[in-house]
């Protein structure tokens, strides 16, 4: 692999488009209820601590890409599916006011962080 392999792979396609077709079938679909796992993350992660253990609903199956925990170390051979998950704010912050119970937050996870709820 050349030192510029990231740029070479993405040229003319874009990142994350350049990883299309490299992950196995997505485990979750839009509407699935999921829980965010609390995996160890001593080196690098993009999974926010405030989402760990929370339950939400998959709203978009976005794209395939290596997980940031791997890509940060140049391990790009195992792309996985990414998902946008929607949470009730009350699920994330127990003190969130009841009067705004409809308020939500969405953020994105690679497949390894999700389990069926």
């Amino acid at each position, binding site marked *: 692999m050349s030192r510029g392999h990231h*740029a070479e792979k*993405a*040229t*003319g*396609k*874009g*990142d*994350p*488009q350049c990883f299309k077709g490299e992950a196995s079938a997505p485990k979750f679909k839009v509407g699935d209820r999921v829980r965010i796992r609390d995996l160890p993350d001593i080196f690098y992660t*993009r*999974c*926010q601590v*405030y989402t760990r253990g929370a339950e939400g609903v998959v709203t*978009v199956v*976005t*794209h395939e*890409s290596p997980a*940031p925990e791997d890509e940060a170390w140049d391990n790009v051979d195992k792309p996985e599916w*990414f998902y*946008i998950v*929607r949470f009730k*704010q009350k699920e*994330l*912050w127990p003190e*969130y006011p009841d*009067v*705004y119970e*409809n*308020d*939500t*937050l*969405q*953020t*994105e*996870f*690679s497949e390894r962080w999700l389990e069926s709820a």
Partner: protein
Amino acid sequence: MAEKHKPAPMVDEVSDFEVLEVAVRELAIEKGLFSAEDHRRFAEFAHSIGPLPAGRLVAKSWLDPEFKKLALEDGFTASKEVGIDWLNPTGFGTPSDYCDLRVLENTPSVHHVVVCTLCSCYPRPILGHSPEWYRTPNYRRRLVRWPRQVLSEFGLQIPADVEVRVEDSNQKCRFMVMPMRPEGTEDWSEDQLAEIVTRDCMLGVALPHPDRKADDKRPVHKAANPVHGH
């Protein structure tokens, strides 16, 4: 006493990240990856891009339901119609940011607002550089937890029956908000509409208003003691 009145440094010490940036840049120039002039040109370009193409994308969507459908389904392709190719936004071969643009549509029952709690993910090719406040820890840590309070500090009150939906942009997707077309803009042209879709409206901290344009004249304050003859 003398110690007490020592002048403070004009700027704080440079951060580790600034040192790292200088080191990597100088190495890249030394190795011939790009020249100092290339770097200057790119920096100049990067500072000149702004939110106008995104405002155009929203205005087109308000007028053309087919284009709106495309913008919501495939922001990458819709961007090309307003002159932005995410693969080559600079026009001189420098790589772009991540290329998965998602447009979030506001409705009478949902208001979106964008943040990146991890750092500063932002759809730069179509919105330009992020405002300074977008990158501050204050905005990032408070918006996810107290969104309505933060929005009210921007002067935006969202009614309780409207869902405030925070989008925490933390991976390779990039997000912009498509606000609702305000009343009082019936029969407006695309050019007129594009002028009122300002940057903050597309981050979700403001709503477009028919009387407010990005290039409105600023108030003029006359000098209290004008120089004679001026």
